[in-house]
C-alpha cells in the first residue's frame, strides 16, 4: 500500500497549500514592513541570506533546525494521541543537563556520545512521568502539569548548572561537553550537519512507529476517537504513556543536540539562555509540519532559516528585532493556520 503521507485528497495538496500560505505570510508581513517604513525586499533578502547566504550561515541554520525538529516531534506525537503536550521546554533543559553530566565519565568516542544521548533521552522521558501518572490516575489535564513541570525543570536545571555542573574557571557556563561525546563533524566541517541527520533519523523512527507498528496505530486510534479505541479493547493508558515517554525522550535529545551538536559553547550557559524556547517553538514547527514527522523535517528547516536570519536582518536591513519577531510570527501563523483550522474547528463548533 502507498505509505500515508501528509494530508491527502484535499483541494490543495499539502505542499502547495503550505507554500501558498507562506507566500501569504510574506505578503502580509511585507505590507506591515512598508507601513512601518522599512524595505520589505531588503528585509526578506537578508532574512534568507542569514539562513542560506553562506556556508557558515547554512550550518548555523541546520544547527537551529535540529533541536526544533526534535521538540516538534514531542508535540506532534502528543497531538496524535489526543494530547496537548507542551512539556518539551522543560524536557530540553533536563536533556541538556543529562548530556553534560555524561562528560564526567571517560568513555571512548562514539560510545560516549551514545551514552550522553541515552542519558539525555532518559532524563527527558523521566520528566514526563508525573504528567502520565497525574493524567492516567487522577485525570489532571496535561497542559497544567507540563507547564508546571517546565518551571520545575527550569529552576532545577538552573541549580544543577550552577552547583553541580559548574565550570570552576568560567562562572557563566557549565563544564564543556567532552570532545568524545560531541556530535562528529560531518559535512561542511560542522557538527550541525550530523546533529541534523540525527534529528532526521529520529523523525523517521517516529514515522515508522506511528504508521507501521500496532502500538503506533493504537496511539493514533486513541487520539482520533478514544471511545472507539476503548471499545476495540485498547487500554487508553498505554498510548498515553508511549506518547509522553517518546515525546519526553525526543525533547531530551533536543537538549543534547543543543549542547553537543552546535559549535559553541558545547555547554549550558548558567541562565540556560542557549536552550530556552526550543520547546515552545517546537509547537509552531509541529503545526507547520502538520504533526507529521516528515512534514516536521521540512518545517524545522524553514523555521531554522527564519531564525538564523534574525541577526543579519537587524544588522543590514536595519529592522528592529521586535519587528522581525512580529513578521516571523505572521509568517508562522499563516503557515500553521490551515492545520490549526482543521484540528480545532470541531471544538469551536461545540
Amino acid at each position, binding site marked *: *500500500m502507498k505509505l500515508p503521507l501528509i494530508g491527502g485528497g484535499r483541494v490543495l495538496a499539502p505542499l502547495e497549500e503550505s507554500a501558498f500560505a507562506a507566500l501569504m505570510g510574506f505578503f502580509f508581513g511585507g505590507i506591515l514592513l512598508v507601513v512601518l517604513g522599512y524595505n520589505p525586499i531588503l528585509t526578506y533578502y537578508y532574512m534568507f541570506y542569514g539562513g542560506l547566504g553562506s556556508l557558515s550561515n547554512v550550518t548555523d541554520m541546520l544547527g537551529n533546525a535540529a533541536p526544533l525538529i526534535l521538540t516538534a516531534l514531542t508535540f506532534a506525537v502528543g497531538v496524535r494521541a489526543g494530547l496537548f503536550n507542551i512539556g518539551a521546554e522543560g524536557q530540553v533543559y533536563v536533556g541538556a543537563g543529562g548530556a553534560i553530566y555524561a562528560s564526567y565519565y571517560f568513555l571512548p568516542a562514539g560510545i560516549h556520545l551514545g551514552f550522553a544521548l541515552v542519558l539525555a533521552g532518559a532524563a527527558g522521558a523521566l520528566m514526563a512521568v508525573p504528567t502520565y501518572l497525574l493524567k492516567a490516575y487522577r485525570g489532571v489535564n496535561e497542559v497544567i502539569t507540563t507547564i508546571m513541570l517546565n518551571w520545575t525543570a527550569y529552576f532545577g536545571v538552573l541549580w544543577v548548572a550552577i552547583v553541580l555542573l559548574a565550570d570552576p574557571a568560567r562562572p557563566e557556563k557549565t563544564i564543556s561537553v567532552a570532545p568524545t561525546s560531541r556530535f562528529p563533524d560531518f559535512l561542511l566541517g560542522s557538527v550541525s550537519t550530523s546533529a541534523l541527520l540525527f534529528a532526521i533519523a529520529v523523525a523517521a523512527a517516529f514515522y515508522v512507529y506511528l504508521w507501521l507498528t500496532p502500538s503506533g496505530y*493504537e496511539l493514533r486510534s486513541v487520539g482520533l476517537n478514544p471511545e472507539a*479505541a476503548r*471499545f476495540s*479493547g485498547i487500554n487508553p493508558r498505554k498510548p498515553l504513556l508511549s506518547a509522553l515517554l517518546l515525546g519526553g525522550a525526543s525533547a531530551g535529545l533536543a537538549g543534547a543536540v543543543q549542547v553537543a551538536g552546535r559549535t559553541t559553547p558545547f555547554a549550558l550557559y548558567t541562565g540556560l539562555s542557549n536552550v530556552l524556547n526550543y520547546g515552545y517553538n517546537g509547537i509552531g514547527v509541529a503545526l507547520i509540519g502538520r504533526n507529521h514527522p516528515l512534514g516536521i523535517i521540512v518545517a524545522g528547516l524553514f523555521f531554522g532559516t527564519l531564525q538564523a536570519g534574525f541577526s543579519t536582518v537587524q544588522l543590514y536591513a536595519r529592522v528592529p528585532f521586535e519587528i522581525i519577531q512580529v513578521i516571523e510570527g505572521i509568517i508562522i501563523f499563516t503557515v500553521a493556520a490551515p492545520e490549526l483550522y482543521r484540528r480545532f474547528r470541531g471544538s469551536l463548533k461545540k
Partner: protein
Amino acid sequence: MASPTKELVKTSNLTKTYPDGTHALTGVDFSVTKGEIHGLLGENGAGKTTLSKILSGILKPTSGEIYIKGNLVRMKRPSDALGLGIGMVHQHFALVRPFSAFENIVLGTDLNPTGERAKEAKASIADLAKGVGLQVTLDSPVESLALGAQQRVEILKMLYRNVDILILDEPTSSLTIKETGELFKSLLKLKEEGKCVIFITHKLREVMDFCDSITVLRQGKVTGRISKSEASPITLATMMVGRTVEFELKRSPMTPGEEVFTIDNLTLLDREGKEVVKDLSLKVRRGEIFGIAGVEGNGQTELAEAIAGIRRIAKGSIRLKGTETGGKSSSVIRRHGAGLIPEDRRQMGLILEMNLDENVILGKQRDLQFRGSLTSIAWRKVRQFTSDLMKKFEITAKGPESPARSLSGGNQQKVVVSRELSSDPDFIVAAQPTRGLDVAATEYIRKLLLDSRGGGKAVLLISAELDEILQLSDQIGVMYEGRLIGVGAAETMSRERIGLLMGGIVA
C-alpha cells in the same frame, strides 16, 4: 381570561424535515387546553422530542402553524417561547452545577443574585415552591442535590418566568418512585392553578394515572388523540407500536443448540450509584436470536457496554462458553469468541478520520495474520483483507483508502459488522444494528444476523425497533427500568403484549 376549554397550544399541519431528509413530523395537529395534563406518548423516534423542541422554540418547523392562546406565532429562539409562556424541562437538565439552586433559577433574568432585590426574589421563590410543593434548599449548590431536587429547580426556573405551559421531557426517567410521586402531586397542583402540562413519556402507567388526555405519535404522525376515560393500556399500546412491516424476511426454523452465552443476576450502576440494570439474567443458545426490546434509556446501553467489557459490573456474572468474561477487556472478550456491534457506530464502531484499511483492523491490529517483518503491521496484507471484506459484504466505497467518514451510514455499518463477523465469533451482540439506516441496508444487516443464526451462532439483539425484534428473534424479552421482563418464545409474544411491556405493564 378565556374560557377554561380554550386551547392554549394548537398546531396545525406541523411538519419537520431534517436536512438529512428524515421526516421527523408529518402533518401533526396537536392541541392542549387550559388546566390539563396532556400526555405525549410514543416510541423512540416517534417525533415526541422534535414536537416539544418546536413548541419551545429550539427548532423551527419546516411548514405548518403554531397557535399560542389563539394567536398565530413564529418562534425563532427559546426566549421567544418563554415570552409566550412556554417553558420546557429537558430530560438532561440544563443547570450550572456549582451554582446554588437560587442562582440557577434567576440565571438569565435581569435579577442580580447578590443584589438588593435578591432577598425579595428568594422569598417569593420560596413561597412559589411551597405553594406547589416543590421543596428545594435554595442555597445549596445544584450538584449536591439529588436528581429529583435538581428537576424541581428546573421546574421552579420555568415557573419563576411565569410560564403557563410546561413541557416535561421524560421527567420520571431518572427519578425514584418516591420522587415520581412527589412530582405528580406538584403537577396536579399546577393544573389546579390553571397551568397546563405537556408530559412526554413512554410509560403507559403514568399516562393512565395522571394525564387528562393523550396524544400518541408514531413515526412522526399522530396516531391517536383520546381522553383519559376512553384510554386503556391496550389501546394506547396499539396506537404506539402500530403494525408496519416494511419487508418480509425468511426465517427458517432452527433447533437451538447448546448454551453459549449466559448472564446471571447482573446489576449495573450509573455514575451516581443508581441501579440502571437490575438483577438481569438471560441465556442465548446456538442458532438462536435473543431479542431485547424496549424503549431506549431503560438500561439497554449499559447492558451492551457491560457485555462488551467497557462498563464495570456491580453484581452478577457474564459467561461466554463457560468462561467468566464479566469485567474483562473488550479484546479478551473478542478473543473468547464474541463479535461486538456497538449501538453508536460513528462514536464506538469506527474511527471516522481513518481509512477503511485502518478501520477493519481496529481491535485486530496485533493479530498474527497482519504481522509483517519484526512487529510491524503489514499493510499489504491488510489491503487484501479489506478488499475481501468489501467484496463479500457489498461495501460501497471509493476504495480501501477512503476515510470511513466518506461512506454512507449503511456502508459504515457494513464495515463494522463485517469486521466483527470476520473473526467467526460464536456469539454476536448487536445493539441497535439498523438505527438510521435506509431500507436496503437495514434488510441487508438483518439478513446477516439471520445468516449468523443459521450458521449456528448465538445472537443477542438489542433493539428499540419493535419490527426488528419481531422479525428476527426466537426469544424475546423487554427491558423496562433496568429489568428484563416478560421473557418468552417469540411465538408467544404478540405485538400488543410487547407494547404493554415496553410501557411497563406486565399483563
